[in-house]
């Protein structure tokens, strides 16, 4: 098992999360096996209630599993103690949420530098890094804005910059475009794409097929289990214009 754990950036084996007992037992995550290689973008898609958010919470150490194993960069992480788990969440995993979860009383740059400060970086280093990250997400000129003065798409880009603050091994995104209009969705997708190009490992759970379709691999989830997997990388179909009746 340890060999398998070392081959992947993120690995889950027989992962389970159950709520309740007896007749009321709910298997939110039911014996899930997941393998994510370094630099890969994987999307998990399914209707609401299929267990995809719970899965993401387990993978990122936000919630404890009922059984199974989780390995992050060759290290088993599902049995870590509370303090080690908190450190893992802070340093090794970046989170992006549907509702952004920014601190409203902090400016954009203060939000982005926060995880680095918590990890013990000097204020100067943290600020320099945060400025660089805001630049990377195209919001250098909004550094001093409060989140309330930013659009939804801009807030999410700040949140993505924050998720990168401690150079995480993996970024976990839960419905990252769920609250965004189509232009803002496009901006966030472009950003994910540039992270992907830079080698960042990404796991995105979503019910939005347009995000899922940009991943390297798409996993369909129903009732807590994986039911289908599609590898999306590959050649062009040559039918792009077909719906517009230009060709095809």
């Amino acid at each position, binding site marked *: 098992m340890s060999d398998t754990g070392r081959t992947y950036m993120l690995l889950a084996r027989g992962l389970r999360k159950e709520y309740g007992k007896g007749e009321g037992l709910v298997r939110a995550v039911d014996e899930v096996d997941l393998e994510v290689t370094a630099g890969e973008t994987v999307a998990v898609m399914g*209707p609401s209630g299929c267990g995809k958010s719970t899965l993401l919470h387990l993978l990122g150490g936000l919630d404890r599993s009922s059984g199974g194993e989780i390995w992050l960069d060759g290290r088993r992480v599902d049995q870590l103690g509370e303090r080690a788990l908190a450190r893992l969440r802070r340093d090794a995993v970046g989170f992006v949420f549907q509702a952004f979860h920014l601190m409203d009383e902090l400016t954009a740059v203060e939000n982005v530098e926060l995880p680095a400060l918590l990890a013990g970086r000097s204020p100067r280093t943290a600020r320099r890094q945060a400025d660089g990250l805001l630049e990377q997400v195209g919001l250098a000129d909004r550094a001093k804005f409060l989140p309330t003065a930013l659009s939804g798409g801009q807030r999410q880009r700040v949140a993505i910059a924050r998720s990168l603050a401690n150079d995480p091994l993996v970024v976990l995104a839960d419905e990252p475009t769920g609250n965004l209009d*189509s*232009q803002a969705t*496009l901006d966030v*997708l*472009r950003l994910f*794409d540039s992270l992907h190009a830079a080698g960042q490992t990404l796991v995105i759970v979503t019910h939005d*097929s*347009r995000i*899922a*379709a*940009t991943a390297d691999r*798409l996993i369909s989830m129903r009732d807590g289990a994986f039911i*289908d997997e*599609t590898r*999306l990388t*590959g050649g*062009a*179909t040559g*039918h*792009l214009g*077909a*719906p*517009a009746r230009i060709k095809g």
Partner: protein
Amino acid sequence: MRQEVVLAMLAKEPSHGYQLRARLTEALGPLGDAMNAGQIYVTLDRLEKAGLVTREPAAELAVRPDRPDRKVYTLTAAGQQRVASWVAQVDWPRPDLAEFHLKLIAAAAARLADPLAIVDAQRRELLRRLREAQRAAMAEPDDSEAALLLEGIVLRLQADLRWLETCERNWTGRKGQL
């Protein structure tokens, strides 16, 4: 209506023209009202000339000399082959969703293929196209005119994917009833 749809309706068992029409009307509901009554016979005629079906007088109709038009249509080997390749074929978009819908029905009735496997193949194809359209949209500058067209393509593909999810749920349910 594509000839293959009529052919596929014969895959389960030989049938009369009027039975085919009734089956299509049932499958299409109000959408079938637009179907011309004579259209199916014209199609059957063409299929016969193409060697894809044969037409035999129905045995039980020997006692009904007043209705000599009632013939039974049967798929030939070539017809069966054509149906099989139509069922396996994944293509989108077609102007009518009805063709895909009827493909699932015909495939299930004649046990030619698992409707869920057909839905799956279709979904993969649509996802590949969605990916392509989305990537093209991402590559366009914000003020691009083409981006607007690409957005339309993306939205259409998303709508089709949502319908496929509904197809999947529906056919999963039917399978459970068998």
